[in-house]
Every structure is written in C-alpha cells, then in structure tokens.
C-alpha cells in the first residue's frame, strides 16, 4: 500500500516543506488582499473598493478560494503546532546561558509567538469585517454605483476604524505580520530547497521589501481613515 505522495509530509523535512507551501500560499493571498484594499487610497468615496468587494464576495472561484484559504490558515497553524511539539520533545533541558542574538535574529526564534499574535489579530479582523459581510449583515444602507446597488463595505471600514483602540490593534497586528514575514518569506524558499548562490540574495532582498511594504500599506488604511484623510 502506498501512502499519500509517498509519505512526503510525514518526516521532519516534509513538515518544513508543508509549512513552506502553506506559507507561500498565504503570502499570495496577502498580495491580493492588499492590492484590492489599497483602492481606498484613490479616495473615490470607496466606489472601486465596493465594486471589488462585491466581486470578491460573489465570484464562484473566489468563494472556493475562500475555503482553500481557511484550510491554508488552519493547515499552517496545525503544522506549526506539530513542529512545536516535536521540538519540545527534542529539547527539554535548557542551557543556563544561551546567547541567541549571537547566532540568529530574534524574530526567527519567536515565529510561534508572532504567529499567535497574528491569529489573535485575525480573529478580531474577521469579527470586524468577514462575519458581518457574510453572516450578520453590515447594518449599513447599500450604496448606488453606476445604477447598481452594492453592499457598502467602505462605510463599514470607516465605521470600524473610527475607534482608536481598534486602530492600535490593527497596527500591532501588522507589526507582528511584518516580522513574521521577514523570517517566513525567505524561509519558505529555503524549505522548498530553493537556495541558490545567485537567486537567494535576491529572494531575501525582495522578501524584506515585501515584509515591510505589505504590512505598511495595510497599516496605513486604518491610520488614514482614523485621521480623516479618507472619506
């Protein structure tokens, strides 16, 4: 009897590969999510954003990908938990003196903590937007754009980000995401075996830019709304 894909994900190397695959998938989602939301900076009263949100909410392919996305997030978390349990078993006696900063970046050693912070942020974020949009309703009148009626997700954003502490939570979430990506982006390529003298420096450089830029653009959204730059 053969196992699934020859048991590729059952070993320590396979677990890394799995982590890399789900990680890259989640990174690709971030790019799409960020690009769509960045349309609010056009400051057109949210028309393009509302149209894009409508497309994302109704297109069958996107709706399927939404399920895949949740599977990806849950998969990534489960893999992280399995790896953490493995590693606790491998290393139960700690050093009296451990000079961690001499050999690795702090955020590479604290991926689990950063991931947990991102998960906490994600729960708040889903309750703010995804749950009302899909299930409980926005409680905001729909908006007319070019004679068509759209759910006013943009107004929902303005409402959510008018509260100071919410804005702070979102910024902290994005700082956690930035550090998580700083380690995760290049790490995914390494785990998939993609390390090359010529390309790896480029991947690392691109990864750093991506890790700062995407969370920065996300963080600017609540800030711009809270401080009244968008309306």
């Amino acid at each position, binding site marked *: 009897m053969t196992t699934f894909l*020859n048991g590729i994900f059952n070993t320590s190397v396979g677990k890394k590969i799995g982590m890399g695959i789900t990680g890259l998938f989640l990174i690709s989602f971030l790019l799409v999510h960020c690009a769509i939301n960045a349309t609010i900076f056009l400051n057109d009263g949210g028309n393009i954003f509302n149209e894009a949100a409508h497309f994302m909410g109704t297109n069958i392919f996107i709706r399927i990908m939404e399920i895949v996305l949740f599977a990806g997030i849950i998969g990534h978390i489960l893999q992280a938990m399995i790896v953490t349990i493995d590693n606790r078993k*491998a290393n139960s006696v700690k050093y*009296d*003196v451990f000079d961690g900063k001499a050999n690795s970046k702090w955020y590479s050693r604290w991926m689990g903590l950063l991931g947990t912070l991102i998960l906490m942020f994600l729960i708040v974020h889903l309750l703010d937007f995804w749950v009302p949009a899909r299930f409980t309703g926005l409680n905001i009148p729909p908006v007319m754009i070019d004679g068509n009626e759209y759910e006013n997700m943009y107004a929902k954003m303005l409402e959510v980000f008018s509260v100071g502490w919410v804005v702070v939570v979102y910024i902290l979430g994005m700082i956690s995401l930035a550090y998580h990506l700083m380690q995760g982006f290049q790490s995914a390529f*390494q785990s998939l075996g993609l390390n090359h003298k010529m390309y790896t420096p480029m991947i690392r450089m691109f990864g750093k830019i991506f890790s700062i830029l995407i969370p920065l653009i996300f963080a600017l959204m609540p800030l711009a709304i809270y401080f009244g730059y968008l309306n």
Partner: protein
Amino acid sequence: MNFTLKVWRQKNKNADGKFVSYPLKDISPDMSFLEMFDFLNEELISKGEEPIAFDSDCREGICGACSMWINGRAHGPVPGVTTCQLHVRSFKDGETIVVEPWRANSFPVIKDLIVDRSSFDNVIAAGGFVSINTGGAQDGNDILISKDDAAEAFSASICIGCGACVAACKNSSAMLFVSSKISHFASLPQGKVEARNRVQNMVAKMDEEGFGDCSNTYACEAQCPKEISVEKIAKMNREYLTAKLL
C-alpha cells in the same frame, strides 16, 4: 590571566548535575581552552578531587570530539573554530566563563561535559556511505569529476560531526549535519547511485533519533566551526523532494 570557570558537573547519565565554580590564577593567554581544563584537572587531581570529564582528541580542529557550550555559544565566542582551537586570550581577564555540555535530548550527558553522540553514528549508518564491491582497485581517473563538483562535495565533507549545529539549534535539529553528509555524496557520481535511498533513510533515522524540526533560524550555520552553509539543508530538501516524488 585570571578566570572563574563555572562548569557543569554531573556524575553519570542518571545523576542530577549542578554548576561548580573554579577560580583559576595565572593562566597563560597562549593556552588553548582545553589546556586550561588540563591545568585545572591537574590541580583537582593533586587535591584528590574528581577531574572534569570532557571530550577531546586531535586538538587541531579536525576530529570533532570536543564539544563545549561556552558562555552561551557552541565552541565559544570565536566563529569558525572548535573548542580545542579556542585560546583563553579570547576572554577578558577576570571573566566568569560558563561551560555546559551540549543540550539536546538526542545527546544525553554521560558525565560532566561529555555527551553521547551515538545518534549521529546511527544516522551515518543509515546511509552516510557508498557501497563499493571488493575487487581490483579502479584507476583513479576512471570517473571524471569537475572541479566545481569536487569543490561542492568538499564544502560539505568538511563537516566533522561535532554536533555544534544541534547544540546551537533551539529545536535541537540535526539538519545541518545530515544535509552535509547527504550533499557530500549527492555532489559526486559515486554517491548518486544510492542517493534516492540515502536521503530517505538518513532523514527517517534522524527523526527516529529524536532530533527536532528545522525552523530556519540558521543558528547552526552561525555556530558551525567549519562554517558550513545552510545551502546544504536546501540541497537535502531538494534531494528529498526528488526521491519522494520523481
């Protein structure tokens, strides 16, 4: 130079260990770190005390026997050297130096600073070799190997199997060691014959021996006395993917 050595003392595998401090006076700055331990041990023996047990063999940085965790780092603060090649002049006069054994569940402490690294031997036995039939010796140039391939193999074969990578890793992962061995053989035509089984067997054995999973902190690379690159781990991952899927 004067130092205080705070050393892990543990009678045997099952005993509880503890730190013991030893003040040392008039140490020559030219002494190697292990010579300082020899010096201390002679003092201990002359006083009728049990000397500190530690591993050493060649004392020229090529055998991989020495294995101390010094002030929070494998083989001490100087990059690219083993403990035997570390000199006491690398420390500040009057400094307290904390010396611990490697800490990893796959490297149990046998006594004081000596750990059992049989787990590495078991991983090697699972595939870290090439099978060669006996018979007349082959001509040395029968199999042509390019300079680049030879250099690539050499850059992996310099692993001395000391275990610093495992000791430095927060997950006690042995991936730098195992990947060095796999890369070494994978770069040479003689190794390609058994490559598929080698990577699968060695990875399986590494897991069975209880080493942790890699999380790409790259502490292993930073603390490897031979400065072996984590490129080797990526190469192992490629070998693994190829073996499993193709």
